[in-house]
């Protein structure tokens, strides 16, 4: 017989004490329960064809996020890259450049710590840190919870910094409007060929840290060729957040989304 499942508390998690005024959503906090096992009917063994997509639940939640963002008039961007490709630095400089012209909000995912959220904090820019507790990617449910935790009124651009990982985030739709893949000059020219799904699913690819390309003996031409091969559909930008090189074109791309 069916028995009542454990009742999951649905309130947002409370911020950890060391996180100051940064909003932290730790996905280890309970939010959802599994369906209960079925009742007492016994029959012979039979085979049922179901043919349902396994990511259905995430995809469904992603569509809910997308609809909610559309109603709010928000364009969401999902930033993916290896750890250390410069997502946080790019976002810091992007937020500074957009200033008060374009009202923005940021969700940032990491396995642990609220360091990135602290780095990204700016007056008037709501920031939520999502600590995944070991999960190697953000999913749509985490993004929905984080969206609940920050004020989104008037926000036009929602920047979602995914967990640094060039593999798994490719499989998880967050409900974003644009997927932005970063690859830095310190990573080697063949990254796009080694991790094709992250590039073939990107709307834009940013080649970052181009200020150090010379010092790294980085072959920009070859890297751009490889990006073109793996991501023929994507807009490509070469940027240095540090020196500002290429940032105008990137900012124009963002403004073009509005």
């Amino acid at each position, binding site marked *: 017989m069916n028995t009542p499942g454990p009742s999951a508390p649905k309130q947002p998690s409370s911020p950890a004490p060391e996180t100051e005024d940064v909003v932290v959503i730790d996905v280890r906090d309970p939010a959802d329960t*599994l*369906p*209960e*096992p*079925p*009742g*007492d*009917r*016994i*029959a*012979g*063994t*039979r*085979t*049922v*064809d*179901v*043919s*349902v*997509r*396994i*990511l*259905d*639940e*995430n995809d469904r939640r992603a569509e809910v996020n997308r609809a909610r963002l559309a109603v709010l008039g928000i364009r969401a961007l999902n930033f993916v890259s290896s750890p250390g490709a410069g997502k946080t630095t790019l976002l810091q400089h992007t937020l500074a450049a957009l200033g008060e012209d374009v009202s923005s909000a940021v969700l940032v995912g990491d396995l642990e710590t609220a360091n990135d959220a602290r780095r990204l904090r700016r007056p008037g820019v709501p920031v939520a840190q999502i600590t995944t507790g070991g*999960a*190697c*990617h953000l*999913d749509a449910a985490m993004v929905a919870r984080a969206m609940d935790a920050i004020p989104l009124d008037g926000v036009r651009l929602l920047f979602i910094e995914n967990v640094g990982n060039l*593999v*798994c985030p*490719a*499989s*998880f739709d967050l409900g974003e409007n644009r997927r932005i893949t970063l690859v830095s000059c310190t990573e080697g020219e063949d990254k796009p*060929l080694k991790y*094709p*799904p992250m590039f*073939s699913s990107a709307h834009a690819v940013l080649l970052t840290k181009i200020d150090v390309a010379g010092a790294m003996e980085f072959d920009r031409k070859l890297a751009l060729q490889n990006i*073109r*091969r*793996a991501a*023929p*559909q994507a807009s490509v930008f070469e940027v240095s957040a540090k020196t500002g090189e290429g940032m105008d074109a990137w900012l124009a791309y963002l403004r073009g989304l509005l």
Partner: protein
Amino acid sequence: MHEVGIAQAALDQALEQAQRAGAVRIHRIVLRVGTLSGVEPTALEFAMQTLLPGSIADGAGLEIEPVPALARCRSCSHEYSPSDGLLFECPHCGALASTVLRGRELELARLEIS
């Protein structure tokens, strides 16, 4: 290792579908995994095995049906099976842009229940 999350989603789906079919026990779970799905079948199977105990699928057999990739060239419409890896070019005209027709599947195919 996002296979753990996918395994959990697969098990959730299996339990939900079994409940819908009025099952008390799941004896076999058959998954369909495309070669371009980004999921490593061995890792997925291992992750599933660790999640089954305690559910009505405890002890269930797991089967993964691989789905080979099939692509259509966006330039010359030639259909081909990409032979190696995730990045491929049309053997007919050499173009890189293609539409994937098959190979991204990540599905719960069948359940054997009682």
